[in-house]
């Protein structure tokens, strides 16, 4: 048993276990923390796959941004210590059944399929290569999607502000 194999299985267990806890726990703050650890596990998997850049982006954006945002919203909207109510049992069972069926279907398909890898030379996913490709405009260049995503981010920014804006009350002084 190699070390990388062990590390892989540990990371997998970390990810899946925390994810499961995140969706079943009855205390909301703990759910957020479990989510945080699950995302760290994902980042670990990226590191194991030798895609360091993505792992870093994951930690910075997801863990450091989105989970913090979620924790903010928890504090803004309710008490963090109370136990949350659960769905009725029939719904839970049915949902579990549906999820399990879907899981089985896809796993069967995945394991039956024969994935053929390409035989061409590999490209090192270093920051320099990523930068050249992302901002390049020749074949394999992603400059256009990059610009589009930035427009989307602008729209999302404005949208958030508009949606969360408190409407003016009627008796406001000039």
């Amino acid at each position: 048993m190699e070390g990388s194999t062990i590390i892989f299985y540990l990371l997998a267990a970390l990810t899946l276990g925390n994810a499961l806890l995140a969706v079943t726990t009855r205390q909301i703050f703990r759910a957020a923390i479990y989510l945080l650890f699950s995302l760290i596990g994902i980042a670990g998997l990226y590191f194991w796959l030798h895609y360091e850049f993505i792992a870093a982006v994951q930690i910075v954006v997801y863990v450091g941004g989105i989970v913090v945002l979620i924790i903010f919203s928890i504090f803004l909207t309710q008490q963090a210590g109370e136990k949350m109510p659960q769905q009725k049992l029939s719904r839970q069972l049915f949902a579990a059944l549906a999820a399990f069926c879907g899981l089985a279907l896809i796993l069967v398909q995945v394991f039956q399929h024969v994935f053929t890898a390409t035989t061409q030379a590999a490209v090192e996913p270093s920051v320099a290569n990523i930068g050249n490709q992302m901002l390049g405009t020749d074949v394999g260049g992603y400059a256009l999607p990059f610009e589009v995503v930035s427009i989307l981010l602008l729209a999302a920014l404005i949208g958030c502000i508009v949606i969360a804006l408190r409407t003016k009350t009627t008796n406001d002084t000039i």
Partner: protein
Amino acid sequence: MPNTFYILLIPLLPLATFVMLGLFGRKYFQNTSGVIATVLLLAATVLAMYVAYGYFFNYGKAGGVYQKLIPVSYHWLEFSKGLSIDIGVILDPISAIMLVVVTFVSLMVHLYSLAYMKGDERFATYYAFLGLFTFSMLSLVLSSNIFQMYIFWELVGVSSFLLIGYYYDKPSAVAACKKAFIVTRFADVGFLIGILVLSFYSGTLDFKTLIATLTSPESSALKNAVSASFLGMSALTWGLILVFIGGAGKSAMFPLHIWLPDAMEGPTPVSALIHAATMVVAGVFLVARLFPVFAVDITALNVVAYVGAFSALFAAVIACTQTDIKRVLAYSTMSQIGFMMFALGVSKYGGEDGLGYGASMFHLFTHAMFKALLFLGAGAVIHYVHSNEMKDMGGLRKFLPITHITFLIACLAIAGVPPFAGFFSKEEILLAAYQSNKAIYYIALITSGLTAFYMFRLYFSIFWKKPYHSHNVHSATADKHGEGGFAMMFPLLLLAIGAAGAGFIPFGNYVSSDGNALKSEMHLSFSIAPVALGLIGIFTAMWLYKKENNKPDSIAAKLNGLYKSAYHKFYIDEIYLFITNKVIFNLIGRPAAWFDKNVVDGLVNATGNTTQFISEKIKGLQSGKVQQYAIYFLASVIGLAVLFIYLWK
């Protein structure tokens, strides 16, 4: 033809009366409506006489034979080549005669009603309805197309309905007008089916063409109609009998006669016009119009003859027991129309064999005169006494002299006493019956005797029997209001002249089955039997009724069962009521109503209820819960994926 415009004007003048008085009468013309209507009708009468004179003496004949002329024809609804409803006018001997009869009697009634209906608050409406009736009857006799005649047939029935129910706040009048309309409408179903059968086989609806197609011996239409048989009788027989059923309903032949006595609920001038002289002879007119086709089929002709003869006898027996003077006159009308019917039934077509036809039409003409006179006279009596029952009358000859004399003339005419009009027409009928069918001859003879008896029973009970005491008037001054004025007496006098003198017209020269003149001879030896029987009837009535005595009651007690059933009109009304209530309503009506309410309505309601039930059950699918939607979504996607991956062939 120079007179086309005048011919069209004859029915249109009363129509104008109807429209004007119907729309504006109540508001503008209330008091003058009678005069307006009478003047317009006078113009129509003059025109009718002018047209009839022109037809009979100037242009009607061609080669010595009276022709059927069609001055006006307008092509209206076409069903197929040759089968179309045209609106047209036909001018032949019977329609010319009917023009004169209808307009003249209607004019007399209009004049009479000026005094009789004076002061009635719906005066204008009354004259409007009279105008509608006159228009419909005139158009009926002038119709050149059998479907056009059916249209006006129905319109005449509507006018009768409106006029019988004129006093609409009396429940008996309302019941009577409904009964009349329903019975005649029921008979008209037969008429319509008969029209369809006849027009199917002859391929046309036009009278002239229909008659020509179905009577010429070589025509294929006739062969088809005769050979196609249904339940033992040929199609031609069925068609003719069904048409006769329609005529029997309108002419109150047994067993469709039940509406005529009840129709006496209408005002008396209406009874004189519609239910004595004109509308009830529409059935006879119909058979006469189609007579050439009837003559081809002996079975249908026999049906006409026997129904007519039986109705005549039946009505005469009942009339001997009735106490309401208008009911007596109603049954007398039914009896006389029976005479006209069987006269047609025993006749044949062509030459001297067509004596019955000529006799029937002659009797129609004279009957219109004396029956209208009888009814108008009865109206004068009722107007004076304020009651319809014979027990309230008696000894009125001192108080109503003109009415008395004219009533006597009419009774003598109807009893067949020479030289009044009824004698001549009845002689011809009896002669025609004697020559063809002895059984009907004997029935007719007995009926003539009974006719004389009950008419004079009526006469003596009104004008002789006992001295008149007015019970229900307040003081002696009421007796002074006497007979009605000029407006009521003048029509009586004119009609009396007609009843007395009409017999001397050589009718056979003008009206006969094929247009050739009939030689009308007087067989004096033949006339002895009927006249003798009539005189016996008169003297029996005089013996029993001239003075007050108890002989009639003792005779009635001896003939107990027969008298009672005749008094109750042989329970025919009760039989009809039984059949409709117990049989039709219970056995057909109630199950049909149950079916309609529970099955038909139930089906529709069930559709609605089921839809509602299902929608209640599935509305939960739109619960507003996002997660539920997401579960359905995922489940469907998995299902579709399984379908496409594994099950798609």
